[in-house]
């Protein structure tokens, strides 16, 4: 069934969108990631204009992370204080990100910015995750215990220390603030929640306990993506609500199926699979930049 998207101004198959939403939902349920980093490139592949894809995906992430954070709030695995510090940084980052996005859009380089960011971040995260989980698999076969993390690093020498009771931390607000800014910029230019960057940063950089990491990151993501959605909606008019709803429905159902599949699989093999998937998306986008495109020319709306 074809459906005409009022903002993207193209006609697409509604079942294709439901299917995409469902597929990404399954993966996000399996791996506990938002899935924005997979959905946005998939939307590019099916011909949704990048500006619309990025803005609409931000809106969809509001829904999925809100749904996720409710479960975490019930289990009290959200560090609200840490979340607010991250959020404060995140809003500043998102604001800067939108300015950068609009500036490059006026230069006609927004596609390059979005694709390059994807290649760089998916490449780094994908390979790190792949190596780390491969090691874990090899170690668990040999029977060694996973080494504990370093407890002290340079981060503990920074000023403006604050107590984060839920996380059991007494650290400077500067590192979470900077992580927040960074994730905010990513959310604005990549149309992702940024969980795939924030979660490793919280674990390895801030030494937060793993059980509060996902909930806190979801809490922060809701507000940053909501802010991004509003910015895109009011400055670029690129949020397509019909597209968002179609992706949402598929995504919600898929996430529940994915969670059940994920429970039956081993954590290490799950992480390897996720790493491979991230690297495949990264490779495809990277090749698009490196190989001479079959059509060198592109059309941009408007004049100046």
């Amino acid at each position, binding site marked *: 069934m074809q459906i005409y998207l009022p903002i993207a101004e193209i006609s697409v198959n509604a079942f294709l969108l439901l299917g995409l939403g469902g597929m990404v939902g399954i993966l996000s349920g399996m791996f506990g990631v938002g899935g924005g980093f997979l959905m946005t490139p998939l939307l590019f592949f099916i011909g949704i204009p990048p500006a619309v894809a990025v803005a609409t995906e931000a809106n969809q992430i509001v829904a999925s992370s*809100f749904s996720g954070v409710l479960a975490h709030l019930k289990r009290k695995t959200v560090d609200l204080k840490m979340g607010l510090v991250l959020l404060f940084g995140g809003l500043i980052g998102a604001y800067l990100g939108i300015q950068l996005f609009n500036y490059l859009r006026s230069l006609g380089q927004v596609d390059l910015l979005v694709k390059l960011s994807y290649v760089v971040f998916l490449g780094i995260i994908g390979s790190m995750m792949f190596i780390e989980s491969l090691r874990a698999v090899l170690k668990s076969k040999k029977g060694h215990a996973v080494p504990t993390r370093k407890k002290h690093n340079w981060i503990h020498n920074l000023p403006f220390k604050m107590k984060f009771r839920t996380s059991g931390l007494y650290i400077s607000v500067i590192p979470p603030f900077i992580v927040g800014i960074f994730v905010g910029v990513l959310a604005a230019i990549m149309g992702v929640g940024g969980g795939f960057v924030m979660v490793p940063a919280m674990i390895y950089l801030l030494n937060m306990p793993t059980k509060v990491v996902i909930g806190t990151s979801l809490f922060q993501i809701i507000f940053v993506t909501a802010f991004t959605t509003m910015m895109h909606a009011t400055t670029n008019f690129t*949020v397509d609500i019909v597209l968002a709803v179609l992706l949402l429905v598929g995504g919600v159902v898929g996430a529940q199926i994915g969670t059940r599949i994920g429970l039956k699989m081993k954590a290490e093999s799950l992480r390897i699979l996720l790493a491979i998937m991230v690297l495949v998306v990264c490779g495809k986008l990277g090749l698009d930049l490196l190989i001479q495109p079959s059509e060198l020319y592109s059309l*941009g709306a408007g004049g100046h």
Partner: protein
Amino acid sequence: MLRYIALFLALAFPAHAEKIVADLSQNNVGISATFDGSNILIFGAVSRDAPIPDDGKTEIVLTVSGPDLPITVRRKDKKLGLIWVNSQKVLIDEAPSFYSISTTAPLTEILSDAEDLTYRVSIPRAIESIGAKIASEHNAEINTEEFTEALIRIRTNNNLYNIQEGAVKLLSSTLFSASIDLPSNLTAGEYTARILLTRNQQVIDQFETTIDIHKVGIERWLYTLAHENALYYGLMSLFIAIASGWLASAVFSYFKS
């Protein structure tokens, strides 16, 4: 006296001896949520107050064009010896967002180059790119024609530009009909259907009518809201997202318990 007037009229307005009378199957196309392209049937007749002149065949050229809009064409170049990046750009002052030509015979055989220039019939002539030509005079590296060709190529691949020679059926040099396919990726706006009657590559009469293509129903409502009340539209998008996130969580926790 009357004979002189008749002779004078015949000499003064020879072009008006033949006139086109035409109509469309629809002057109004609505883009609804399930819009999947449309089709317009154009039909008409050549009305004459004299027998068909025998100095050449009657031919019909039909064009349908969408709103003229400025457009920027960008070309990717290899930068840093590694990645393909948008570099050169050319501004096309006005290009129809949709353009379709249907004729009774190959266009060059039934329309002279001079008439094509006057009436702006063929695809490259329908595109206005004076500004681009001026820009290319300042910058010798830019070849404007390549950019215009690229615009035509991309729009042709997207089914937005097409030429169908021989698609207009002409019966007894008098009755004609043609059907135009409108693709699903249309830009809304006022479209113009133009019919040219030609003989010996000269235009004898011209007929023009408009087709109103616009978003209807929820499509129109959402588009207008998004552009005119962006704040409310954004808040509504967020509300829908939050509500469905809550609903999903509520439904699944109900099933779990």
